[in-house]
């Protein structure tokens, strides 16, 4: 059962893979979130600056602008620098800590992933007591 606060949270999903965009959007909508979606980093940045979502889920490797570049750009803007980001990546272990320390990246989720687990991460980021980049954070409040 979702609370009123959860239902009003807006989440931006950015991925160039249409199927991933579709499946995550459905999972989050079914959980009561408002979902915005973008097909690449440029479009994602534009939408984030425009809509100021509560959380962003973004793929790492995308055409025109990567997820990392988008996060770096968001971190330079006062209005978007605090937006928590969950980064999805299919690049195995090629993302290093230095890369993800830039911007407000809270979690790195490796593909293939479980939409269920991503939903739990979203809940914990939005409503849990989540220090930055702590994958063990509690999601009891949202559960």
């Amino acid at each position, binding site marked *: 059962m979702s609370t009123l606060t959860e239902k009003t949270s807006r989440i931006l999903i950015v991925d*160039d*893979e249409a*199927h*991933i965009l*579709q*499946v*995550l959007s*459905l*999972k989050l909508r*079914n959980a009561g979130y408002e979902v915005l979606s973008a*097909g*690449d980093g440029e479009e994602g940045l534009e939408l984030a600056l425009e809509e100021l979502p509560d959380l962003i889920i973004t793929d790492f*490797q995308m*055409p*025109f602008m990567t997820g990392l570049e988008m996060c770096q750009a968001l971190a330079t803007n006062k209005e978007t620098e605090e937006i928590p980001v969950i980064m999805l990546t*299919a*690049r*195995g272990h*090629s993302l290093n800590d230095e890369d993800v320390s830039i911007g407000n990246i809270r979690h790195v989720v*490796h*593909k*293939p*992933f*479980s*939409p*269920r687990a991503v939903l739990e991460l979203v809940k914990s980021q939005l409503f849990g007591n989540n220090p930055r980049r702590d994958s063990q954070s509690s999601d009891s409040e949202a559960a």
Partner: protein
Amino acid sequence: MVSLKLAVALGLVSAATGILLHDPSVLQVWLSGQSVVLRGAVLVVIPSLTFLVMLLSFGVAHDRAITRLSRAIETDSDGGSEIDKIDAPGWLQPVVNVFSTSVKRMAGECRQLRDQLSSVESHKFVVEAQKKQCEAVLHTFRDAVIVTDDADQIIMTNEAAGELFKFNVDEAAYQPFESIILHEKLRRLVRDTRQAGDIGQCRHAQIHIKLPVNTTTSEMTQETNFDVSLTCVGNQSGDVGSVVAVLHDMTHERELSELKTDFVSKASHELRTPLASIRAYIEMLIDGEASDESSRQEFYRVIQDEAERLSRLIDYLLNISRIEAGIVQIEKKEVSINALVDQAVSSISPQASNKGIEISLKLSPEGIRLEGDRDMLHQVILNLVSNAVKYTPESGKVTIVAEKDTLTPSLLVSVIDTGMGISPDEQRRIFDKFYRIDNYKQLAPGTGLGLTLCKHIVETLHHGHIGVESKLGMGAKFWFTIPLRQTNPRIAA
């Protein structure tokens, strides 16, 4: 003649002496009738002549024995056996014995010396051969080799070192190392290695050398990384004799390592992406997130499509790897290009119709036949036609041309579309593994391996060429050629 006269005289004197010795009264009777002078003369001359004859006889015998001994010494070839054979008179035998022993001893010593000389010569030959082999090996090395002696002179080097440090290999021999090599770090490394004196221990270091980017524009340089192996070689007294420095250009290794890392990273991305969709949609179905039958059907379709994409990716990857490793067995038979084009077009027609794309064929009416692997060539044509349809906007046109170039002679197949075109930079990279044009990614899914595989099939397996011509906004033309006489010129003649 002298010896004959001597023999006659000796004979007469011997005869006279014999008569007198036999019966001295004959002499007395004869002398009583002679004058005093004649008697005196006979009495003096006969003993003198007798003595002289005896002396001559002894001299001749002695001379003969000495001559035999000299000849035996001269002709002796195996250490005294000829000397032993001479029939020497008793008085000469001790001398012969001494000679024989000495000659035998000297012969033994000579034999030893001869053996030693032969061994030294054969050893010298082996050493010279080994030196030549070493030099030959050294000169074929791509690695630069410099060997310095205990006086810090270059005692051995090779062409690679000469090219790297710009010196003449022949002129550098026995020149001071530091007058030839100006690279400060390398000088220091050689000095340090000699000073450390760890004989037989190889130490490694990295150095950078500025090299011209290419030979025509020598002004442009770039830092090239070299691995330097340094080894001390001991001399006879166990001290450091020479220092061997071998410089290996690490550019190739670094590029190879980067390629591998890049490949693994890209392959990981491409394999995980369809797998991510499959896993996510299955979980959504399990969790009952699809609200109705239509959504569920849509999920099943996505899972199927992504599983096929994954399967295609794995096939492409394996085929490319096999071709690169040279372990692909292709079956070359006579193939009709018109038939292959027709087959590819009939496979793609449904997608083309959905987008309202017209496929036009310009094939040689008499048909072109060539020796090739049917399935592989079908894959190439299908890939090019499929790409053209995928990336051409609705109501566009795709033209397939198959013609014979009689000059080369070869088959030329072109697939021309009216799509958005490809920039020159993208044209250079389009056959690279996993490369996909950013603008095209959102138009249709792809593996980024199709064109790489086409290139391998055409160029590696059929010795042809593949390429693209395009201008942005003006469509693209992908083409490939396959030689028509590629196996045995005698058959084609």
